């Protein structure tokens, strides 16, 4: 546990000493601010449907997903790829640390950074509360959804980072993997006959998961899906790191 925390702490130092981190944070907040503004402008239109602003903000627009699909690969691309490129992976793997501890520490650091990206958006809730009554339940569920979807996406990104020593290739692999996961509902719609497979694909629709979270519905099936797929990719990342030793 202490060793995992040490790796987490070191990774956070790496994140916050990199100009890329501040660039990502600034860009993220600017664009989220713009989306928040657009959502409010849209909902202020008398002809628009009635909807809680934060519900629309969380997953109600394609922008939410575009950000995740681009930002997560940037967050995870250097996790293991950088260690392999600079050779520091040799220091880690020859100390009394297991591959699982390395992956866990690095993944948790990515999750902390990802969560830190979203924290300032809590200000939007404060602003909304000044002008209207808002139900905090769906807001909190929305943030839970953001973290759970992030858990899954960061797991995919961490796995992609173990596959290469090149940042850019790691980011591209993560992006392709995330798009593939995100596109699962499209496959479901292409299937004509009702089948168990079609039903299973239906449960993997991340967009509808996030819509539920944003409405305050925390369906345990969604939670289990996000966590289990995220953990599956972390397991694959650990195995991938172990397999490098045989080469």
């Amino acid at each position, binding site marked *: 546990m*202490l*060793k995992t*925390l*040490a*790796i987490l*702490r*070191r990774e956070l*130092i*790496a994140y916050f*000493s*990199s100009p890329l981190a501040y660039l990502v944070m600034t860009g993220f907040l600017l664009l989220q601010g713009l989306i928040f503004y657009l959502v409010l402008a849209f909902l202020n239109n008398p002809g628009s449907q009635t909807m809680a602003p934060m519900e629309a903000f969380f997953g109600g627009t394609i922008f939410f997903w575009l950000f995740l699909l681009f930002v997560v690969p940037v967050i995870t691309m250097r996790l293991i790829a950088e260690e392999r490129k*600079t*050779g*520091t*992976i*040799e*220091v*880690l*793997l*020859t*100390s*009394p*640390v*297991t591959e699982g501890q390395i992956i866990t520490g690095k993944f948790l650091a990515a999750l902390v950074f990802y969560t830190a990206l979203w924290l300032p958006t809590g200000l939007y809730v404060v602003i909304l509360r000044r002008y209207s009554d808002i139900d905090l339940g769906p807001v909190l569920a929305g943030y839970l959804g953001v973290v759970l979807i992030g858990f899954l996406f960061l797991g995919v990104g961490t796995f992609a980072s173990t596959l290469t020593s090149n940042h850019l290739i790691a980011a591209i692999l993560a992006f392709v993997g995330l798009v593939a996961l995100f596109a699962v509902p499209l496959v479901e719609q292409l299937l004509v006959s009702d089948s168990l497979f079609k039903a299973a694909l239906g449960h993997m629709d991340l967009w509808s998961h996030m819509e539920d979270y944003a409405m305050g519905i925390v369906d345990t099936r969604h939670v289990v899906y996000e966590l289990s797929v995220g953990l599956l990719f972390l397991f694959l990342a650990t195995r991938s790191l172990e397999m490098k*030793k*045989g*080469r």
Partner: protein
Amino acid sequence: MIEVESLSKVFVDTPVVDDVTFFVPEGQVLGFLGPNGAGKTTAMRMITTFLRPTAGTITVAGINADDDPVGLRRNIGYLPENVPLYPEMRVNEYLRFRADIEEVPHRHQVARIDDVVERCLLSEVRRQVIGTLSKGFRQRVGLAGALIHQPTVLILDEPTVGLDPNQIIRIRELLVELGQDHTVLLSTHILPEVETVCDRVLIINRGRIVADGTPDGLRSRMAGKPTLEVAFKDVPEDQVLGAFESLTGLLGVECLDDGHFRLECDPTGDLRAPIFWLAVDRGWTLLEMSPGKASLEDVFVRLTTDEQADPAEEA
């Protein structure tokens, strides 16, 4: 302390380490020599469990690498080639990180960091960002990281490569000091370093051990027939060669570039006195006469370029 038995590593049908067996007792400093691509780094990486062997067993401090790799790594301090470090961290932060992952108890960490900072002469840069340090300092930071948990075994892969002469001397002094209380496996290309630091030398070529012994032992083993190097003042070469024909026990003469002659002698006799009287009789001034001695360089070059080197004979 380090026991390696029938160790092999094959990369895509090419054996990089081929059936290597050796034992390093506690407290010994073993120099691991070999040309580039000989398999030194691969062998070291397998001993530290960074690479999985294709065949063979590795035991360090009584712990088998297959049974308990993490336990084995607790006993090893490893400095990889090119000293990989985190350039964004400060020296203090890095050593704290290494102490954490090397399981140094929290209450001892400050003392351990102070100790390695002092030992590796890092006091003046301990708050500096690693990326801004010179190569010599970075080398010492890597070494300090390898020492932080007081390992019983140190494995150092070319610790002085790329350093300037002053830095090499400092690191070498540190290695001599470390050799007093650690078992050290040291890979290097710098042969004088081996003579200064190592108790024993192991030469590896094309993945196989071609020589194993003390530096002096290897030199004498490789010296072959005794030789003498002789020089006279202002005597023509043909006259000297003519005079040498009268010597009994002389097996061959080689004229060197600088007016010197290398004489290959019969091991049963001593030609020094006859050569002295040969010079006296002819009124020649004898400038120099010294027994030839094979250097470790000679041994290294011969063993790593001679395809016929027989490991069994040299070991």
